[in-house]
């Protein structure tokens, strides 16, 4: 979606278990939900 929106040089970080141990952990596990850092550029 980032590239479709016009961004370039998209980088994705490692997954983080954002919800582990929280009330929403079971739901997150069910859909393999993790947090990620992303970086992308507006073309110069």
């Amino acid at each position, binding site marked *: *979606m*980032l590239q*479709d*929106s*016009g*961004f370039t040089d998209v*980088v994705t*970080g490692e997954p*983080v*278990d*954002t*919800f*582990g*141990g*929280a*009330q*929403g952990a079971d*739901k997150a596990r*069910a*859909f*393999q*939900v*993790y*947090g*990620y*850092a*992303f*970086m*992308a*550029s*507006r*073309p*110069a």
Partner: protein
Amino acid sequence: MAQDLPVDPDELRAQVRGKYRQVAVDPGAGFHFHTGRGLASRLGYEAGPVGALPDRAVESFAGVGNPFSLRRLAPGEKVVDVGSGAGFDSFIAAGQVGHGGQVVGIDMTPEMLAKSRQTARALSLGQVQFREGFAEALPVEDGCADVVISNGVINLCADKQAVFAEILRVLRPGGRLQFADIANGRPVPAEALRDIDLWTG
């Protein structure tokens, strides 16, 4: 409903605003997500800058990742924080860009804005300001930002393409988007996508 969006944007905003009003005024209430210093540590934020912040700057933090983990901000950069909440990431950004930089945090929840503004005043951070607005209509000029940051916000917006288009407008040519958000490894059924209650809890 606009276009082919799975949920009504205004209804979703109302639910999100209600949820994050709670996070602002009663951050220890218990939510489906982690909050505060424990979350910041879990997401890999540097201990020093987080430890230097007062509790009120950290306790309502509810991000899902670390937008600074792939690249540290440079001194003097101009930053826009989309969905700044109680200001945690804006304050971390302010420390990285220094007094020669600028951070504009934008949020739609009045209680979060009040809290972030009070904290900025208490910390005498003149390079930080907070404005009311939506991610799809950021109250800043075209091309004003070297970097746009965001944390756990875009997944709560019904029209993500509109948000990315708005961020592209705000960034200068060559500017960077550094954000953290959730992604799912298994597809969410269409029926669940249309259940607005599942978006916020």
